[in-house]
């Protein structure tokens, strides 16, 4: 930590203790993951949709890292998701069908794009950021559309053959291997993300989100921190995209579409911004809702999604989130519980 010399050792100790206390796993969290693992055995006929939930959950966690913790509003997070998906798909087609290698390559590719575009995001306020992230996603979509010799263009990338996982487990048509694979990846990355947000680094991000001027004044290198978290978040999104490509063995232009960026925002908002479980809970609720709504009114379910968004915002998103967080705090123990201070008001200086 660069800002260490400025603090008295007493404060440093206090912060360290508080971080360690918050970083401890609560009983509820353990139960949450046990329940998730249990679905592997008890809901065999739902594995395909559960796999999708795990992927969307990971995507939402990645958005939460920049939106909830660093306060960057992005309308183009699908850029990284899509790049990850295409890279994983093309890698499996052209190089090797080994899933883990492909996933790593997808993550690295998305991280590189995230690193490169993070400098664009540093400039300007919310609106400029919105436009730049949206623009990056549109450019990525346009490239994928034009480079049809590589990506298959509007027909989608077909003919992806995945090798067995770890050389042992073949992907089956019921999606059991796929779901187990996605769930394990999600869990590992979630633990890493949890470690990140409960580290001094994560704490500095939150201070940038709440007041970047003040954060700069106390010696936090704001730009470098934002570049770092943006890159990490891009890698997460890329891995989520890679998981989708590998488990469905198909990639279409849809992975880069605007509605995907909007959907993931909605997922995160339903679950609650600014605590990692928000993305996961949101993913479950979103998928279940989508399932119910699209069976009621096929092709018009977007209307209800829109209505939910409008009502959610009008009813006071933050208030609902705080409530959920309070309940989560009760359930999951202290670590996921409500922060003692008021939550961030994003986008206001």
């Amino acid at each position: 930590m660069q800002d260490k010399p400025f603090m008295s050792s007493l404060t440093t100790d206090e912060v360290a203790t508080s971080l360690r206390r918050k970083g401890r796993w609560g009983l509820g969290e353990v139960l949450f993951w046990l329940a998730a693992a249990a679905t592997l055995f008890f809901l065999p006929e739902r594995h395909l949709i559960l796999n999708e939930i795990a992927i969307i959950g990971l995507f939402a966690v990645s958005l939460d890292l920049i939106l909830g913790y660093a306060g960057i509003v992005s309308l183009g997070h699908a850029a990284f998701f899509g790049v990850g998906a295409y890279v994983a798909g093309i890698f499996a087609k052209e190089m090797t069908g080994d899933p883990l290698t492909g996933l790593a390559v997808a993550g690295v590719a998305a991280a590189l794009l995230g690193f490169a575009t993070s400098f664009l995001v540093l400039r300007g306020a919310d609106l400029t950021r919105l436009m730049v992230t949206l623009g990056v996603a549109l450019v990525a979509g346009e490239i994928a559309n034009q480079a049809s010799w590589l990506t298959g263009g509007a027909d989608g990338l077909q003919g992806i053959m995945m090798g067995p996982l770890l050389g042992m487990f073949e992907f089956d048509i019921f999606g059991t291997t796929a779901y187990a694979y996605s769930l394990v990846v999600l869990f590992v990355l979630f633990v890493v993300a949890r470690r990140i947000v409960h580290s001094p680094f994560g704490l500095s991000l939150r201070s940038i989100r709440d007041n970047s001027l003040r954060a700069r004044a106390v010696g936090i290198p704001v730009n470098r921190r934002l570049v770092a978290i943006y890159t990490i978040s891009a890698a997460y999104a890329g891995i989520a995209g890679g998981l989708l490509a590998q488990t469905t063995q198909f990639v279409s232009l849809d992975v880069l579409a605007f509605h995907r960026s909007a959907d993931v925002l909605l997922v995160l908002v339903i679950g609650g911004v600014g605590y990692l479980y928000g993305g996961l809970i949101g993913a479950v609720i979103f998928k279940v809702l989508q399932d119910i709504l699209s069976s009621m009114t096929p092709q018009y379910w977007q209307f209800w999604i829109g209505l939910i968004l409008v009502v959610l915002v009008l009813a006071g998103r933050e208030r609902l989130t705080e409530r959920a967080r309070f309940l989560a705090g009760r359930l999951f123990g202290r670590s996921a519980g409500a922060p003692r201070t008021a939550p961030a008001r994003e986008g206001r200086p």
Partner: protein
Amino acid sequence: MLTILFDGVAYGMLLFVLACGLAVTLGLMNFVNLAHGAFAMAGGYITAVLMNRYGVPFLLTLPLAFIGPALLGLVLERTLYVQLYARSHLDQVLFSIGLVFMAVAAIDYTMGSQQQLIQLPGWLQGRVDVLGVQVGLYRSFIIGVCGVLVIALQLILTRTRFGSRLRAAVDDPRVARGLGINVSAIFATTFAVGSGLAGLGGALGAEILGLDPTFPLKFMIYFLIVVTVGGTTSITGPFLASLLLGIADVAGKYYLPDFGAFIIYTLMIVVLVLRPQGLFAHGR
């Protein structure tokens, strides 16, 4: 070459009429309204339905295409938007995306997902030869109408009492309020007029831009480019930005059909990175 320039100017003017309401929304209340295209779509559908189902002449539908969205905008502004001015940009984005989704699905449900075609009156069809340049009659009509609108807007903004109040409110809402200017009434009026203009633009553009339920999503990015590149402090900034965008888009589609969209998005990113306040804005 000149024909392309001409078409580009027509397209740009259309974009300006579509987007200028958004410039006011963003500049005045700092409200990120992604649902602006929905009002344009409403105008387009009013014209299409009136013409195709009830046989109303094209010119008569245009005032209605203005009034309908304007009223809709007024009602929505007073009931829903007004509650969100003080909220974060994230809330505003979510809210307006929600509105767009609802509008898209509702139009899809009531009107079907196919393109709406309108039959222009005979005197607006075809092209004439002016000094060796092929000039589309309908595009000349658009340039004429939009040109008049631009001049009228500019005059209202610079010469009337309402205009100076509006400018004062854009520059500093708090001080303007302190001087006794009713900022929220001004805003409701401009929001309604902006929505109406968007509707009119949607009606005029139904022939050129195409009209189907995904209209608000398809053109959202164009409106936002106009506003962010042009800046929100004046009316000339967005106007020049829309002309540039229109010409660049038409020329790009003509000369480099594969890379037209690509170039526009890249240029937008470059402009925004170099000049976050907009290309024509004076730094504050």
